[in-house]
Each structure stands twice: as structure tokens, then as C-alpha cells.
């Protein structure tokens, strides 16, 4: 099994467009409000749908921690992982699903839809997104090295920043 969230990866504008259109279709079909993609290390990758009113950086960090903690809980009871999590609130709820063990899809929804519909539609979009991300990760190392050092030769600027 692939290690969780290790090694560099990058995706292109084309990847981003296909990810966005898959998520838009999913939001339309499930009537959910918003979906966020979070990297396993806690970095926010993308947001589609209604713009969140909360701090998305903090949200992404806590999502990754939530998922990691539940991964460990799964192992304690003899499962390899929990590939989805559901948190129910009075009005707002969220559903989280693992994608290719590198990314977490987090969907926020309210009482305009039902858990059943979200879960049903989520299955499809997770499969589709997994295909996209598998492709991204198989390019992985090559993609990362094709743009060597964004900050190459920027030593002076870095020094200046810390004066």
C-alpha cells in the first residue's frame, strides 16, 4: 500500500479543471453546499461551491488531523483505515472521504439534502477523482522535478526577507 501523504506531487491546470468540473457536477447532483479537497499533510488544495465563511486554512489542518487520528483508531480495531467519516450537526453536517490515500474530499451540506443522497453521489465522485489523482501521482516525481527550484537563485531575496 502506498505511504500516506508522502513525497512531492503537483498538478496542472488541466488536472485542476477536471477536478473542479467533477466536483461541480457532484454538488449539483447531491445538493450539497461546498466541497474542499485537503492534502493529507493539512494543506488546502481546492474549494468548489459556496465559498466557506470560516477560516479554510484552519479547517484543512483539522480535517487532515481528524482523518489521521481516525486512521490510527481503525488500525487499533484491526481495520487498515476508515475510508469515510461522517460528522452530523443540527443544521450543518460534513462527510469526508479518502482519495487515493493522499487527499481527503470534505463535503459540507445542510438540511436541503439528505445523508443518503450525499453518500450515494459521493461514491461515484470518489471513484472518478481517484482516477484523476492516480494519474497525477503516477506522474508525481517527474512532475515535481520538471520545475526545479522556484526559488533557485533567490538567496539574496531570502536573506533580505530576514534582515
Amino acid at each position, binding site marked *: 500500500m502506498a505511504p500516506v501523504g508522502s513525497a512531492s506531487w503537483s498538478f496542472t491546470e488541466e488536472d485542476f479543471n477536471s477536478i473542479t468540473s467533477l466536483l461541480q457536477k457532484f454538488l449539483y447532483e447531491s445538493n450539497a453546499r461546498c466541497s474542499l479537497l485537503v*492534502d493529507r*499533510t493539512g494543506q488546502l488544495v481546492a474549494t468548489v461551491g459556496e465559498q466557506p465563511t470560516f477560516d479554510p486554512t484552519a479547517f484543512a489542518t483539522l480535517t487532515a488531523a481528524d482523518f489521521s487520528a481516525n486512521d*490510527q483508531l481503525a488500525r487499533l480495531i484491526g481495520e487498515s483505515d476508515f475510508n469515510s467519516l461522517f460528522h452530523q450537526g443540527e443544521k450543518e453536517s460534513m462527510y469526508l472521504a479518502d482519495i487515493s490515500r493522499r487527499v481527503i474530499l470534505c463535503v459540507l451540506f445542510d438540511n436541503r439534502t439528505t445523508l443518503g443522497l450525499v453518500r450515494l453521489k459521493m461514491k461515484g465522485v470518489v471513484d472518478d477523482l481517484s482516477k484523476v489523482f492516480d494519474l497525477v501521482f503516477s506522474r508525481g516525481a517527474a512532475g515535481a522535478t520538471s520545475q526545479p527550484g522556484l526559488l533557485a537563485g533567490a538567496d539574496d531575496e531570502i536573506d533580505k526577507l530576514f534582515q
Partner: protein
Amino acid sequence: MSMINYASREINCKIVYYGPGLGGKTTNLEHVYGKVKPDTRGKLISLATETERTLFFDFLPVDLGTIRGFKTRFHLYTVPGQVYYNASRKLILKGVDGIVFVADSQLERMEANQEAMQNLYDNMAEYGYDLTKMPFVIQYNKRDLPNAAPLKELQAAMNPGWEVADPAKQRVTPDPFHAGENLIEQLPGGEWIERATYFEAVAVTGDGVFETLRAVSKLVLKSLA
């Protein structure tokens, strides 16, 4: 693993404050939170127990400035120091770009410091990271206490240096923060060693907090260059 977002022109890096329980990791973050301008930092998230002991982690995002048109955003994390929280501690190290080890200078905490350092090495190794090859800074905290160990003793115990095998790196490199000291040097026995950059600090008053943060952030950015 840093994240570079070309669309929003941001570089996001992850820095983890590691060290024994009650050593001052959270205090470091609280000081940074209190001192930087509100528009350059996010919320300080603390997952702590009722007695303010860190249970899972503290988290604070800060912007340190712009390089090549990219905003440099650092995500600062602390880990719970107590020995029995290792499972959550290890999770926080995932994808780390730089480490600050906050050591407690008090003589009676020497063993706890060493245990935490060993634990850091072990947890990093399990992820396949080599601590000696990544941005790593040591902070000796609580220097104001009467029972603080002498710096020399702390350095000998916590930062004795690791062997430099690469001949290209085997040249004397002075420590920019401590005149007359070297980060890389040759021991009388002929062996080349490298030590981590270190700082003295009193986190409750803020002494040394920003020096530490600046040093580790700079090392992280240089590692991307």
C-alpha cells in the same frame, strides 16, 4: 513537503515545534501570535486539555513576506510533549519542512530532553526523513531559570553533531549566530561533524522566539532554492 500554489501565488511550508512536555513549545507559538500583525497571521488553533496541556497540536499560520512574487506562508505546529502521546505526535510530523526542537534548559529535564530528541529521530526515520538533512534548529528555552544547565553541557548532550561524510561539505562553516563557533568543523580526531543551529530563549518573555522562527524559516526557504 512544501506546497506551491501558482494560482494564488503562495508557498506554504510546515514547521513543527518538537520537544519534551512543558518545555515551552506552545508558549513560542503564543508569543508569535501576540506579536505579528493580525493581517499577517491566521487563528491560533489549540487542541488542548482543560489544564492547557496540548492534547493533539497547536496550529498557527503566519505570512513572513514575499519572494519572487510569492507569498511565503508558514504553518507552525506544536506537538504534545508528554511521552504517552506519541501516536498523535507522529501524525503531526507528516509532510514537515522544518523542525524546531524546544529543549528545557533545567538540569532535571536533561533526560526528558534526550528522550524527546531520540523520539524525534525515531519518528522521522519511520517516515523516511533524515533529520540531519533537513532544516533543523534547536532552542534552549528557560535560560532565565536559576537551575538552567550551562549552555556547554546542553550542547554536548543535545547537539553533539553528526558526521559529515560528503567531502564537498567538509569545510569549516562558521555559526552566523555565535561568534567564534562553527556549524561544521573537524574534530581533533580528524572526523568532520555538523551541528544544528541553536538559540537561547526565554519564551515567556519572547526572548529568542523570533530569532528561532526566522532561522528555521530561512533554512526552509533555502532548501527550496
